């Protein structure tokens, strides 16, 4: 009888202790905290305890007094993520989780623009991808408006506004009509980043040459070689002159210099001379008797 009574008392004490521990270990956590902002964690009970804030993004440990509010100063917890808070008292353990979110205000952009050099007039030729970050290099996951603008001194700018999804915004833009170093700007809030895109002339659009005799030689010279937008094709582009006569065929490859290609070939009566560059054929000249 005495033994049973002792067990009953012991059991009641244990239950009472457990209830007390459950109450002692109660943690009052914020649901979410903005990265870098001040916050506090409230506990109940009495005695000393250690509070751990644990996550892959950051880890903190504080010695706390149960029943008091533990304050965290601005900047203490600045990495966005999911955190586990564990309060370890002398005879109790309690825990909970909360989230640290990135600040809504963009502070930095990671802007990748490709390619850095491309021909004019290329449809969707330029791509831009932007990841938006806050002051603490956290990816801003709330939707943010990002504007992309491509402009050159020659004018004819293009602008697109895209809303980020999961922290990223992207666009595709046509290259301009005129050759120029274009400024490709991405902007979110007050933050902007610029990349330079070199827009170069496209393939030659038409080709025309002139010829005149100089004694036994034939001087061949193209008119300025341009792309379909009227931009001069870059120097170094190869132009091929071909002369076909009763003696056979001769071919000369000439790089464009200062917008034109020029060469000399033997002047054979009745020869046919043609010119080409890339996939474009130019005019044909037939030599008569001098």
């Amino acid at each position: 009888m005495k033994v049973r009574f002792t067990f009953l008392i012991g059991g009641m004490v244990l239950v009472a202790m457990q209830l007390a521990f459950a109450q002692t270990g109660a943690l009052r956590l914020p649901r979410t905290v903005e990265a870098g902002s001040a916050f506090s964690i409230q506990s109940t009970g009495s005695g000393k305890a250690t509070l751990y804030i644990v996550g892959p993004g950051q880890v903190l440990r504080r010695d706390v007094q149960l029943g008091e509010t533990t304050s965290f100063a601005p900047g203490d917890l600045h990495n966005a993520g999911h955190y586990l808070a564990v309060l370890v008292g002398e005879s109790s353990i309690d825990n909970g989780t909360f989230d640290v979110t990135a600040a809504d205000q963009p502070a930095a952009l990671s802007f990748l623009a490709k390619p850095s050099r491309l021909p004019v007039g290329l449809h969707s030729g330029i791509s831009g991808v932007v990841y938006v970050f806050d002051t603490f290099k956290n990816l801003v996951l709330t939707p943010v408006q990002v504007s992309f603008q491509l402009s050159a001194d020659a004018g004819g700018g293009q602008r697109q506004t895209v809303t980020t999804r999961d922290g990223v915004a992207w666009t595709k833009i046509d290259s301009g009509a005129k050759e120029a170093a274009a400024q490709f700007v991405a902007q979110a809030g007050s933050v902007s980043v610029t990349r330079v895109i070199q827009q170069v002339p496209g393939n030659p659009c038409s080709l025309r040459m002139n010829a005149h005799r100089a004694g036994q030689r034939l001087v061949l010279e193209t008119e300025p070689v341009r792309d379909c937008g009227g931009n001069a094709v870059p120097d170094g582009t190869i132009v091929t002159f071909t002369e076909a006569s009763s003696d056979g065929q001769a071919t000369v490859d000439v790089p464009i210099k200062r917008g034109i290609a020029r060469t000399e070939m033997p002047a054979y009566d009745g020869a046919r001379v043609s010119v080409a560059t890339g996939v474009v054929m130019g005019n044909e000249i037939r030599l008569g008797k001098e």
Partner: protein
Amino acid sequence: MKRAMNNSGQRKRRQMRTLPLIACLVFTAMSVLGSEGPVVRLAPTDSVGPRTLEKQTQTAVIRDYLEAWRSLTVAFEQNRPDLLDPNFVGTAKEKLADTILDQAKLGIQTRYRDGAHDLRLVFYSPEGLSIQLLDTVEYDVQVLDHGKLQTTQHVRARYVAVMTPTEVRWKVRIFQAQPE
């Protein structure tokens, strides 16, 4: 005497029959307990864009992402930031390395055991230089202070990861949990 011998023989036969069954069960249990790999589910990737995602790329990205979790687990358990090098780069690596250094200063270790990943590839950049994925991950985390286990908790969180290609593998460049 004969009956006793018969009984003994029957028992032995029964044992012989039962032994393979027990061995099989033990082996199955060992296989289940021993298979530490997490359960991985991948949502259909048909709508990933704007760049077309090739099957090989998808396989490599998932493989390298899960490998990154493995290296994170070991690095955090042993407080060795150098173990992050093969799988993390940029901001993700810096932040995780800082956390590990803080852990070491405080005498804390954390053990992360990822049990399940629910993966969704959401963005493959036009030039092919970044892939973003969302991962609803379930893991157990143990907190040890100066070698003493303080707690073991089961956590479910949604991670955003951005991976970029390097010479031989995809590395995690952004690694951040967000509210579900």
